[in-house]
């Protein structure tokens, strides 16, 4: 009879991989400064958009100062073409942008995660069919297709969410599929199956927890893309014109002569906050992904300094 720890794969799992997901994220946050910075930025904007209606200084529907009034002590970021306070718009617009980003990502993750799981787990015909569809969608330029769908369907918040969600799942599906294919072959999954576990049980109890961190890393990275796409669609006039979001703020500034009026305050701050959120998502998602991918750690070798960095998360005789 073989002891479980004599199995090299199991031994590696036992020593290298943390047992719970919470433990894994704690390790990532402790070891990687970028993850902490990223998560703080995301947290800051989430909290801000929740409390925005209560703390924003002015209404975003009523005129409170002159047209394109420059920044002053009363209006820190000046006003737009309708005399509406920019800072208040920025705070409450973030609410919509984040909602679109999170909701579209949820749609994308359900489709992408589902396709990746099914494709990787069942293989064969399921895999071939699902991956063909993924490949086709991967090649078709997504923003262009989004423009067409959003225009034909009509401009609304819900439509923008769905349009981004149904087109941004492809890379997630591919990444999850690859991971599921390797988890599926691990010994403990085979043993569980030998003990009589059904597909549903194996997928939900044994495979999903293993791909969980990767899925979360991808979710965060997709949020960044979704927010970016929302601003792009809004800029082309395809978002709900009655709702203020970061995308529509930029659109209004462009359409309503902010540049020729010299009103940089209607343009500069909104780009900075969009970039801040995207950088936050990128830093956190990338840090989690790097922590999951031991291959990248092997390469911590620089020609100039010429020394090997210690390897983490691998067997004692690696490299």
């Amino acid at each position: 009879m073989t002891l479980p720890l004599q199995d090299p794969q199991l031994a590696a799992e036992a020593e290298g991989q943390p047992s719970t997901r919470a433990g894994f994220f704690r390790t990532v946050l402790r070891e990687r400064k970028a993850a902490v910075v990223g998560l703080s930025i995301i947290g800051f904007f989430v909290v801000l958009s929740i409390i925005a209606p209560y703390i924003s200084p002015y209404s975003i529907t009523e005129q409170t100062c002159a047209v394109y009034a420059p920044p002053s002590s009363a209006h820190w970021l000046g006003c737009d073409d309708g005399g509406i306070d920019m800072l208040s718009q920025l705070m409450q617009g973030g609410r919509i942008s984040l909602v679109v980003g999170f909701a579209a990502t949820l749609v994308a993750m359900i489709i992408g995660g589902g396709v990746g799981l099914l494709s990787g787990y069942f293989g064969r015909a399921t895999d071939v069919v699902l991956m063909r569809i993924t490949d086709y969608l991967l090649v078709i330029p997504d923003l262009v297709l989004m423009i067409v769908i959003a225009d034909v369907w009509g401009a609304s918040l819900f439509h923008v969410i769905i349009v981004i969600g149904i087109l941004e799942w492809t890379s997630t599906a591919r990444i999850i599929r690859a991971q599921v294919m390797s988890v599926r072959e691990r010994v403990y999954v085979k043993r569980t199956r030998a003990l009589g576990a059904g597909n549903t049980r194996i997928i939900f109890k044994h495979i999903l927890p293993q791909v969980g961190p990767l899925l979360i890393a991808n979710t965060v990275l997709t949020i960044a893309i979704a927010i970016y796409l929302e601003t792009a669609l809004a800029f082309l006039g395809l978002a709900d014109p009655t709702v203020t979001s970061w995308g529509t703020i930029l659109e209004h500034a462009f359409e309503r002569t902010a540049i020729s009026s010299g009103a940089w305050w209607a343009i500069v701050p909104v780009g900075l906050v969009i970039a801040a959120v995207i950088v936050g998502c990128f830093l956190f998602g990338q840090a989690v992904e790097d922590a999951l991918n031991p291959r990248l750690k092997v390469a911590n070798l620089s020609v100039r300094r010429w020394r090997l960095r210690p390897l983490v998360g691998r067997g004692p005789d690696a490299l």
Partner: protein
Amino acid sequence: MRSADYVLKRGFFALVTVFVAITINFFLFRVLPGSAVSDLSRVPKASPQLKHALTVEFGLDKPKWQQYLIYLRELFHGNMGISFANQQPVSHLLIADLKNTIPMVTVGTVAAIVVGMVTGILSAWRRGSAADHVSTNGAILFYAFPTQWLGLMLLIIFAGTLPAGGMENPFLFSAEPFWQHLGDIAQHMVLPAATLLLTAYGSYTLVVRSSMLETLGEDYVLTARAKGLPDRRVVRRHAFRNAMLPMVTLVALDLGYIVGGAVLIEVIFSWPGIGLAMYDAIQQRDYPMLQGGFLILTVAVIFLNFAADLFYFRLDPRISQ
């Protein structure tokens, strides 16, 4: 033999993808509510007879599959319909626009690839140095800035010094020598191409950097070092060549993103290309133009992807195994 197989397989995939795009293009405009008739017959006192006449004229009384076959047949004859907005054939209008889009996008993309490679290699080479931090953080930042915002920033900064919109100075007479026109277009191209460069180069830097780092850890680089080759030579002859493989894949995958960015850029700088044509089509509800623009951009991306596949195969014939 094997290489012929590979080319055939990828070529077949590209053709099927074009077909998928055409099919999406056809059904998208039919499953969603509303049709050309309900739009055109929105005149006061539109009679049912007028509606019926329009339906028959557009062939909308025929079953869907028959409409689809007609659509395919016409498309293969180069007929993409008539623009609602100015009653001219869509294909003529869009091909003229495509001729304006290609130079701007090519210049911007090539510049982005060059800047991305140089900064990425420097970053990996001088890993951990101040230069590495600047180039990596800069790449992340520019990757994060929305394309349209970068364009607007360049407009704010350079309005006055460089032409801010359009492709040519309309007051330059056609009798002026050729090179003067060329210089004029080049001047107009600076800002749009620079926006494309800034928005696209960040991801190249990051990928080149990580791929270079990975290559620098390989055994053959260690061997090259051990032979006593100078750093510069190790990086250029041994590490660089292999590190460039992922770059080809990335550029191919990025094409869709670049084309999307080009639409935004053309809108900002009024560059008379396909992106601006699609934007105008959105404003004027000009569906045939929108459909045509989508199809041309998609087919272009698919074929460039195919070209990238073949190029990758030239560089690394192992992939067919």
